[in-house]
């Protein structure tokens, strides 16, 4: 049976408790991340997603409730230092955190900090660059600032990957990238899971982008998990998505409108291809469904 690598139980987090700025960002979250899965956490701005994932490597500790990572309570003494190796956290726009002279030094920074010998750290860095799909021969000696936005993002992810974490947590990893850059990131995450069994937690607004990637989706609203399940199933639940402040995919909206107008299509198409097949079928065109 699969183990849970991260478990949040009745997790509450309050920013600035006891001040006029007190905000209850998490209001009783229960969630499990299983070994080797890709879990997408979606929700509107301010729903608590980023606050939640900062609990996964001990950056934040619960106000009440409990978070266990690989079986260890994050409030246990000394836990945060260990978590830092086991849970790699890639923040929003991580390319702003590159600071070394060369891409290679930047990616090797984490492993060096883990206490690896310079040569070992370098090997790790080269491995991580290759793992994210950058050619070390081409980019290792360059200044991080001379890379394009998409490549800089990949280099920043390589910096976290070089720690060989058991769980990789990414906050909006594809935001701000062009469609080709987005696809590159999603392909990378799929490969990491497949080849290295890395559990991946993905915080995102891009519901449609993670359809083929995430095994499960958790929807957050107002500091709680309000819905979860397989992506296709969650995405077709228009009412719950709207209640969480998320947009229903265009294909779902369109087919719902056509159903209401009496066109015999099946509601709930999640991809453009499926929507086209449904509509073509209703109009008796070639390439429709039966």
């Amino acid at each position, binding site marked *: 049976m699969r183990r849970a690598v991260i478990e949040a139980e009745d997790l509450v987090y309050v920013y600035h408790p006891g001040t006029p700025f007190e905000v209850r960002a998490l209001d009783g979250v229960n969630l499990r991340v299983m070994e080797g899965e890709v879990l997408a956490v979606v929700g509107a701005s301010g729903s608590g997603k980023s606050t939640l994932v900062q609990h996964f490597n001990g950056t934040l500790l619960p106000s009440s409730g409990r978070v266990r990572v690989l079986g260890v309570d994050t409030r246990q003494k000394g836990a945060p230092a260990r978590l830092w190796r086991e849970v790699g956290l890639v923040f929003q726009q991580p390319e702003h955190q590159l600071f070394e002279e060369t891409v290679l030094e930047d990616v090797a920074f984490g492993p060096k900090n883990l206490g690896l010998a310079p040569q070992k750290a370098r090997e790790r860095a080269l491995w991580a660059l290759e793992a994210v799909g950058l050619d070390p021969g081409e980019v290792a000696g360059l200044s991080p600032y001379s890379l394009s936005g*998409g490549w800089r993002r990949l280099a920043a992810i390589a910096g976290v990957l070089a720690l060989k974490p058991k769980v990789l947590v990414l906050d909006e990893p594809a935001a701000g990238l062009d469609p080709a850059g987005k696809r590159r990131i999603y392909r990378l995450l799929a490969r990491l899971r497949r080849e290295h069994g890395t559990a991946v937690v993905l915080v995102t*607004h891009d519901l449609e982008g993670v359809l083929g990637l995430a095994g499960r989706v958790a929807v957050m609203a107002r500091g709680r998990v309000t819905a979860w399940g397989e992506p296709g199933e969650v995405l077709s639940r228009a009412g719950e998505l709207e209640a969480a402040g998320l*947009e229903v995919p265009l294909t779902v909206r369109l087919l719902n409108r056509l159903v209401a107008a009496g066109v015999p299509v099946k509601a709930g198409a999640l991809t453009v291809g499926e929507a086209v097949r449904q509509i*073509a079928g209703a109009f008796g065109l070639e390439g429709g469904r039966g």
Partner: protein
Amino acid sequence: MGGRGALIRAEGLVYVYGRGRPDERRALDGVDLEVSAGEFLALVGPNGSGKSTLVRHFNALLTPAAGRVTVAGLDTSCPHNVPEIRRLVGMVFQNPENQIVGSLVEEDVAFGPENLGLMPGEVKDRVDRALAVTGLSALKDRPPHLLSGGQKQLLAIAGALAVRPSVLVLDEPLSMLDAVKKREILNFLRALNQEEGVTVVMTTHSMEEAAAAGRVAVMAGGRVVLEGAPAEVFAKEGVLEELGLELPAAAKIARALSRRGLPLSPGITGEDDLAGELEGLWRLWRGAARH
């Protein structure tokens, strides 16, 4: 001035990063582009195509290595024009963290209008309106660092709006927002453009967002390679695909159905057009099937 002439004009604009260094990069390679007073222009293109570099020339943050940029006739390369240019052109960047200066949301938005030397009452009006339209009124007494990423981006937009610029330039303003907020901001930008006559220039990777604009200019390799109304630009599917840009989902569905023989109009870019035409065709089709 007045009239609908070119408000911003770039001619033969070249810009080079790290000039003279081994990793020198020619980010703009001869851009000719005009932004007319009162229009809503979307600049689209893949990462590294030069969009951000181009719009940084519009408020004289960068000045041309070769060629010329003018704003309301003022050359951006003349240092004494810069204060006037920055009053005319408000900028919002992708990363809001670097643009927040106040210790409370309200103070942050007030920073710009206060710097214009406006009366306190006028400052307050502008701040209240900017907070209301961006939906931040309830958060006005919060410190900005307690806002979420998306809320910070809204705050940056509110701060720029409070200055009431003639042109609002936004560099990837929506990339960190959820879909609902994206649409709200886009609707808001459209209303600002159409009802208040503010010229809007927005960069984006997303054709879906570009469809909201009146005109689209596509950049690649430091040049403008396509220009026109959204429907005209979307019709050049081959060029866009080569650049790795995706058509909006509604346009993709319309095209695929047209290819299968459904008589849809060629210029469909949005959901409402597509749903409307499909419903109309269904009524006709069903009527014909009855006879």
